[in-house]
């Protein structure tokens, strides 16, 4: 990747919009900042809880891919032991 003008020395996913799935079934979409001892820090995060959303994870992601992230949290830390998977949003096809 080119152009890390303002982000020298950061982790590979720094600045990349990712889909983070949790072991509890939540899905968060946001800009990856870093992973440290506290967990994964995301910025400008949209979240999906299947128990309250009324839509499926796939529909949530489909809408996010088309219209962008509807931000629920400016910053969010997901504890490391709750992270089930992290995938760049841009690489997703639904």
């Amino acid at each position: 990747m080119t152009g890390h003008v303002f982000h020298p020395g950061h982790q590979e996913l720094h600045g990349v919009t990712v889909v983070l799935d949790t072991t509890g079934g939540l899905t968060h979409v946001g800009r990856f900042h870093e992973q440290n001892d506290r967990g994964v820090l995301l910025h400008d995060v949209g979240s999906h809880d299947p128990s309250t959303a009324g839509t499926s994870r796939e529909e949530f992601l489909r809408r996010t891919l088309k219209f962008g992230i509807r931000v629920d949290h400016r910053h969010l830390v997901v504890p490391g032991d709750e992270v089930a998977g992290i995938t760049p949003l841009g690489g997703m096809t639904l």
Partner: protein
Amino acid sequence: MPYDPRLVQPMREEMVRMGARELTTVAEVDSALGDPKGTTLVFVNSVCGCAAGNARPALAHALKQVAKPDQVVTVFAGQDIEATARARQFFADYQPSSPSMALFKDGEVVHFVHRHQIEGRAPQAVAADLVAAFERHCAKTQAA
């Protein structure tokens, strides 16, 4: 807090060199986007090297092709805050991100490029998508 203007000046100049018109005030945005005729590309510029560092060269490449928008304008997120907020009102169905690009045809958004569609991709790949969008939506305007 905006970055030092001296730091972002080269990013502004990169846009101007490719033919984009900077919109730094609400009045300039309204003037540029208020007339719905023809095709207009709005580039939301950003200091982020991860994405904007690829998006600007991608657009520059796409604008060298035959089919291209009637006008290309740019606002700078985090710098020209009021102008950016006003521009985003014209494509309010799309959540804010930067960099991003909105292609208008006769006042309607016909193509949108989010930040996540730029991140991690080579400028040539982003440019190819833009060229396809320009050929689809702007070619007739060019031929007229």
